[in-house]
């Protein structure tokens, strides 16, 4: 049974709460760019993707690559919620020897499809996966998320050319347009705009949506499936730190620490939604 939009909204809030728990108090954690992805990741893991938490290597599964690997916390929250590993694991994130590393590691964490974190590489990996699945005539899809700061990496554009040259229409990319890089606004620090024109010029079909609107994410993915012979990118307008009022649109929470008061305030705010 697929979840309803109302249920997905709750899932997104739960994932945010788990992100906050993983960031904890007095430790650095990638809060902002994880929270901006909560709705997208909720739709993928709890509505869209074919996958089996009890059989993570199921051959027919859809694949997910988080190219902006620093947002690992959102993926960990989703994997735990889906049942890939016990939720208690999230308490051990980044501890010495822990399953949940600072960036996604397929060798330690069930459900992680590839190692990302060095920015700009995950899209190329996703393209390779899409091509490999096509050779095997699999119907599996590949989903990938890149960041608007990340696309300053030249390799993204190498991959963008590859995806359209090889007509990888089983590839679905979300661009998390949260408009903040680690040190400040993208438009002021290193402007990667205009996004739509660039991706169109590279041969992609481009959608432009509100990345926190669950219904719009669902509808757009459906529309994207109808488009053949082209890779598809969904530019998702998001808010960095979304769902935690004091962290919204604040670059300092890219990889910041929470005080005890901030931690409690964030938990209280997210608990209200549940």
């Amino acid at each position, binding site marked *: 049974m697929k979840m309803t939009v109302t249920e997905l909204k709750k899932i997104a809030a739960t994932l945010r709460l788990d992100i906050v728990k993983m960031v904890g108090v007095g430790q650095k954690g990638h809060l902002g760019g994880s929270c901006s992805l909560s709705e997208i990741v909720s739709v993928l893991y709890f509505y869209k993707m074919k996958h089996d938490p009890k059989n993570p290597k199921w051959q027919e599964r859809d*694949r997910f*690559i988080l190219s902006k690997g620093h947002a690992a916390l959102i993926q960990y929250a989703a994997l735990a919620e889906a049942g890939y590993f016990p939720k208690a694991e999230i308490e051990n994130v980044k501890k010495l020897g822990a399953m949940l590393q600072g960036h996604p*590691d*397929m*060798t330690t964490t069930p459900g992680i*499809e*590839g*190692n*990302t*974190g*060095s920015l700009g*590489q*995950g899209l*190329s*990996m*996703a*393209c*390779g*996966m*899409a*091509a*490999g*699945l096509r*050779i*095997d005539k699999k119907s599996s899809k590949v989903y990938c998320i890149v960041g608007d700061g990340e696309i300053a990496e*030249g*390799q993204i554009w*190498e*991959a963008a*050319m*590859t995806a359209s*040259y*090889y007509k990888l229409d089983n590839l679905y990319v979300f661009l998390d347009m949260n408009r903040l890089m680690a040190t400040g606004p993208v438009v002021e620090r290193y402007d990667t705009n205009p996004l739509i024109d660039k991706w169109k010029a590279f041969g992609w079909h481009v959608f432009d949506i509100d990345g926190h609107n669950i219904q719009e994410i669902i509808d757009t993915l459906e529309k994207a499936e109808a488009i053949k012979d082209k890779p598809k990118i969904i530019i998702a307008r998001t808010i960095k730190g979304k769902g935690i009022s004091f962290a919204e649109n604040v670059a300092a929470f890219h990889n910041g620490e929470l005080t005890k008061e901030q931690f409690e305030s964030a938990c209280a705010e997210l608990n209200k939604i549940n």
Partner: protein
Amino acid sequence: MKFQNPRQVYGETLLELGRENKNIVVLEADLGKSTMTVLFEQQFPERFFEMGIGEANMTSFAAGLSLTGKIAFTNSFAVFAAGRSFDQIRQAICIPGLNVKIVGSSAGLSDFGDGATHQSVEDVAIMCAIPNMTVLVPADGIETRKMVRKMVEYDGPVYLRINRHDLPDVTSEAEEFVIGKPGLIREGRDFVVFASGIMVSRALAAAEELAKENISVRVVNVSSLKPVDEESIKKLAEGVKGIVTAEEHSIIGGVASMISFVLRGSGIPLIPVGIDDRFGQSAHNYNELLEEYDLTSDAVVNAVKKLNGKK
């Protein structure tokens, strides 16, 4: 003496393997007529990916292919394969130990005309430094064929370094290639030369020259730079008065570094023959460059004689 071209042998072996194993895929960065992946491309276009002049993307793309169960071979000149793709090899391939084979062609100074930008003096050092990586340097065509086959059997990342030019056969067809095992090429008592790549044949010539003066030199082909069977290396160095290492690579991070490390504390004197922390340069032919950089049998002879003079 029979000569074979290692990149021709590589291309032919890849084609054979392509027939035997449909999981093999080949990626190329617009150098297919040099690396000889063109042979695979002609036969298996659906499993061949022209990635354009974009080595970084090619390498991560290969990681993605391997994540769907493919055995991916990436191809470029060694200087780009190891240099331009270092981070991609490290992050997506070696950290999780993916089954991707990185083939660095026209290695060392063998692309003589193109100069320093295209000549790899440090590729082995870079690749050896990465955890989980296996680094292979064939001495001839015979070994190239065996290595490429072994790379497919072995599940994990491998870097293969291939010379552009014809090399004389120095290894035996009959002997099995085992990753990590140094190969004894010529028996000798007084000295041992640990050599790789083109320098194996040059070390053999040096040993023959020195035999005329009653200096007995053992020649060992160190074609696995990593991993290396340390016990075998120690055994092969037993009883000698001195050691020479010989490689078409910087003396930092290749055979010289590895052998000195393995034999640390042995007290046996060692002289490295190799590129002395310099970049390459253009020349009108390969031999001219090999002479300029002292990568000759004479250089090996002189090193042995120098060691022989020491008491």
